[in-house]
């Protein structure tokens, strides 16, 4: 937490609506989020893609992401009809590809890559809980061996 302000000055309301808190050290922005995965090479990639440090990516960055998403979607379609992988192999590939797509949209289009960590925590925790709980449910149902 940011350092507490000196209690000597009791700040009054600044008159901009009930939701606005008085100006204190509290409202200083958190340090900008530095990305979910570190590593200098990744940061360089990110810099190129996003002008690191900006609160959102550039138009060029968005276009690059969109092209990657399109390629992945195309790949999914092409790989889907290949029988050689077998069912489980194909499912693994599909899940991997769509996880990448999912992450890219969340990280770049939804700006989670550039945002304060609160948002990532909220969304990540909900996703984690949902995946955990529903995987447990699926496992339980599989155990029943019905169908």
């Amino acid at each position: 937490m940011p350092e507490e302000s000196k209690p000597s000055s009791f700040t009054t309301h600044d008159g901009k609506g009930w939701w606005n808190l008085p100006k204190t050290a509290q409202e200083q922005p958190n340090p900008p989020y530095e990305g979910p995965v570190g590593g200098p090479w990744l940061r360089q990639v990110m810099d190129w893609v996003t002008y690191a440090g900006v609160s959102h990516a550039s138009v060029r960055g968005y276009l690059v992401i969109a092209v990657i998403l399109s390629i992945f979607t195309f790949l999914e379609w092409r790989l889907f009809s290949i029988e050689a992988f077998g069912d489980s192999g194909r499912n693994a590939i599909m899940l991997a590809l769509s996880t990448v797509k999912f992450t890219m949209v969340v990280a770049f289009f939804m700006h989670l890559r550039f945002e304060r960590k609160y948002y990532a925590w909220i969304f990540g925790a909900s996703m984690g809980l949902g995946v955990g709980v529903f995987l447990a449910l699926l496992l339980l149902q599989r155990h029943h061996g019905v169908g």
Partner: protein
Amino acid sequence: MAQQAVTEYHAEVHDTTYNTSTGLSNRKLLMWAFLGSDVMFFGSFIATYLVYRNRSLVGPYPENIVDVPITTISTFVLLMSSLAMVLALHYVREGSKNPGRFWIFMTAALGLVFIGFQVFEFWTFVNEGLTPRTNLFGTTFFILTGFHGAHVTIGVLWLLILLFGHFKGTLRSDNSLDLEIAGLYWHFVDIVWIVIFTVIYLVTANDGAPPGAPPFLHG
């Protein structure tokens, strides 16, 4: 260029800091928390679909009617609408009027195209004998994709209202948060579709009759 980036950074951060305990906008926090809630909503539907996978007593089964190539196209359309959405936000924030309008319109239009694909798909399925009452696949498929479609529809309406606001001048670069929040919702609908597309189309589209169930005969 690096110098410029740093300056831009400070400007941006200042712009998006609010007088709240966390410095985050109430509304954006609300939207993210809502998306967390919606994760559980769609999670429940998807889990139901997977639990009932391969358990239909009668056809049609997915392998009989699911059309992956067409849905790949509609998936692509929805992905592109996400791109249009970020571009719209970018230009509205920047204050570029016409590009902003164009991309908001494109987002909504691509969303409409996606809904069109879905309506077409539903229509085809019903014609081939699959309704929500037919079997478990029909029940879970229509409810899951139907609720996603409802989310898209709400998103399209929201975008059209914002587009109207942009013409009227109530949506400007200084309150682009309105558009950003709608954008978060829109992208969320997109990522939900990425999951649904994988689950229904790429993973289970080849499911046939479960053992013991009668084969489905076309016609």
